[in-house]
């Protein structure tokens, strides 16, 4: 029978267990008086999950020296700012979670406050996950403040489970993290045990039921109302839940709750996403001497791009943005960012784009080193090239057309090259649009339309033109503030051109030239 510490006041699920910070600050050395030691003689064992719960990571991530001074993070909750996590000294001063800031100041006047920063916290957890990859290849991030490590396969290498736990504890305490660790055969149970502050290892699935039995139900991931209902029905510990009939539980608390219970005991599969380091590419090259010749820079950039090509090919990835930085002896680095419209692994295509930008470049000083980096990667399919290149004007050109447009865009700017679309609108000025991203709507109009449209209709004296055909009435848009009521005519102007003119029915004397038949 595993003995668990049951706190008197019952905190919410993802809060720190109500233990004194003194206890937290010195991470306990693993003690295993009752648990059996895992030995390698048992073959092909099921997975064993080590959960690391970091109750104060939101503070530890934003404040470096949280051990030396009273400091706390706060969070805005329903319009009022409340304490989220307090440091050891602040806790000793009486600052508690959920306290109003004014109350906290009153108790502990020298308290320093920091807003909570989820992004920094996530980054810290990410770093810790990277660190934990020395113990196992399978690390999972959980809910912003916990990590799961699959350790069964690492036991043989490290010798024993305790060796792994000691190693993990050492790494975490070196970085001044307060933490709880627990080991069990299922991820959900490990997390739950870690959150309750248990230090006992459960290594067999059949022991789970009794090991979890003493945990108060307040640690379960449920909302406050359901927790209250569970409490009202006389359930205080998980042990009480084990005694209840499953179908009744399912009726009252939903199938999600039943699934969670099954996952706890390993009766349902619990698949966790394994943490993987994001791919990054950053290579630089020191030049042999100071270079101000753009051709030589191009060669250096090409060599780096070749490396990028190998990197992408090995991982089946593509990039749509690369950054080239040119470092100078005394002035700031010059950076060139260039991108393609679709993710690519084609080095020549990227090189052509870089070359366009390089040619426009005015160097402030000679270049001493070059660096190429890419941060965002996309899965990219590799096509087979055609053996027999089809001749002439056909579909083969389309691929290179994309490359050409990218090249033009690189030099002319983002808002220079457009596709033409015909949206479904009868208002003449809205029936055609120049758009940057091609999503061609092709709505045909049977009435005669000019090939040229003036960007702005020009006022016109009707005596200067000879009306040839018409009118065609266009009466649209009364529903969206762009009311159009016009009579369109085809006319010949004094130069002999065919024009598209209209009379505005809102001001019947006024005529406008709107297009040319070209």
């Amino acid at each position, binding site marked *: 029978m595993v003995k668990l510490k049951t706190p008197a006041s019952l905190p919410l699920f993802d809060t720190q267990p109500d233990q004194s910070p003194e206890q937290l600050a010195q991470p306990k050395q693993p003690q295993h008086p009752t648990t059996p030691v895992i030995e390698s003689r048992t073959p092909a064992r099921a997975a064993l999950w080590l959960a690391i719960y970091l109750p104060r990571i939101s503070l530890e991530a934003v404040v470096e020296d949280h051990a030396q001074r009273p400091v706390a993070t706060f969070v805005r909750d329903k319009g009022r700012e409340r304490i989220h996590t307090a440091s050891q000294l602040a806790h000793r001063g009486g600052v508690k979670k959920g306290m109003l800031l004014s109350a906290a100041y009153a108790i502990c006047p020298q308290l320093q406050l920091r807003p909570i920063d989820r992004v920094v916290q996530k980054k810290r957890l990410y770093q810790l996950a990277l660190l934990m990859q020395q113990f196992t290849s399978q690390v999972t991030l959980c809910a912003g403040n916990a990590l799961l490590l699959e350790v069964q396969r690492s036991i043989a290498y490290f010798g024993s489970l305790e060796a792994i736990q000691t190693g993990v504890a050492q790494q975490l305490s070196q970085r001044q993290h307060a933490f709880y660790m627990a080991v069990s055969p299922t991820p959900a149970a490990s997390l739950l045990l870690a959150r309750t502050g248990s230090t006992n290892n459960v290594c067999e699935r059949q022991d789970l039921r009794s090991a979890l039995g003493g945990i108060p139900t307040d640690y379960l991931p449920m909302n406050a109302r359901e927790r209250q209902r569970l409490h009202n029905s006389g359930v205080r510990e998980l042990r009480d839940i084990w005694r209840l009939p499953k179908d009744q539980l399912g009726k009252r608390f939903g199938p999600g709750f039943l699934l969670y219970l099954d996952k706890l005991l390993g009766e349902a599969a619990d698949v966790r996403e394994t943490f993987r380091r994001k791919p990054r590419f950053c290579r630089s090259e020191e030049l042999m001497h100071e270079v101000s010749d753009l051709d030589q820079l191009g060669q250096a950039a090409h060599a780096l791009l070749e490396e990028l090509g190998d990197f992408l090919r090995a991982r089946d990835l593509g990039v749509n943005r690369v950054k080239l930085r040119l470092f100078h002896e005394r002035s700031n680095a010059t950076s060139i960012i260039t991108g393609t419209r679709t993710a690519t692994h084609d080095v020549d295509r990227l090189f052509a784009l870089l070359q366009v930008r390089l040619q426009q470049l005015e160097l402030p000083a000679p270049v001493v080193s070059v660096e190429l980096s890419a941060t965002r990667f996309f899965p990219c399919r590799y096509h087979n090239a055609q053996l027999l290149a089809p001749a*002439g*004007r*056909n*579909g083969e*050109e*389309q691929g*290179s*057309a994309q*490359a*050409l*447009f990218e*090249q*033009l865009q690189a*030099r*002319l700017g983002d*808002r*220079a*090259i*457009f*596709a*033409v*679309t*015909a949206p479904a609108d009868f208002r003449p000025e809205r*029936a*055609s*649009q*120049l758009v940057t991203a*091609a999503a*061609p709507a*092709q*709505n*045909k*109009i049977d009435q*005669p*339309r*000019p*090939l*040229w*449209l*003036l*960007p702005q209709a020009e006022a016109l004296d009707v005596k200067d033109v000879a009306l*040839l*055909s018409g009118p065609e009435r266009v009466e649209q848009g009364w529903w969206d503030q762009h009311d159009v009521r016009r009579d369109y005519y*085809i006319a010949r102007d004094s*130069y*002999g*051109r*065919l*024009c598209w003119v209209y009379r505005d029915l809102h001001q019947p004397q006024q005529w406008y030239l709107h*297009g*040319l*038949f*070209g």
Partner: protein
Amino acid sequence: MSDALQQLLIDNPAVWRGRSAYAAQFKHWPSGHAQLDNRLPTGGWPDKALIELIAPRWGVGEIRLLAPLMRTLSQRQSSQLWVCPPYLPYAPALLGCEINLDHVAVVAQTRSEAERHWCIEKALQSGACGLVLAWARQFPRKVLRRLQLAAEQGNALAVLFCNAPTEHSPAALRLKLSPALQGVRVDVLKARGSFATPSIDVQLPLPFTPPHAA
């Protein structure tokens, strides 16, 4: 004449061999207008070349003159690039001419003349565009020569619209356009492989039914 010699002559459009021989052998695009095809030495628009269209102002019928060519090329999935058009190309009318908008790209404006010329040259060289249409008041002769080479290299056709003619232009075909009652009047200023021809009126389909015909 040996076959090899024959082939050499065919491959080199710069050697003039009299009208009939020329017309039959060089690749060309039918213009879609019978009167014009009859008058041009190649029997249509030349391929891999520059065409210069000169008119003091636009809207005289130049796009309707080129519409059949654009349709043919767009049916062959060949991209076309419009560089600095004077007005907005109007999508419903392009669709009316059966031009696939998927293959039409527009460079709305460039910051300088040099950038415009670079843009046209790149598009021609790349081999990705079958047709490049470009507008300017006038193209310098040096630029025209570069563009001619780019068109040959990229296997593309360039149509340059200019308001003022350039002296001694290297373009394969130079036409002066002026409005006419039933379409457009075309003066052939220069056509590679032929002597000057009198002006012709090319009838263009009217966008409406004339009242007397109804």
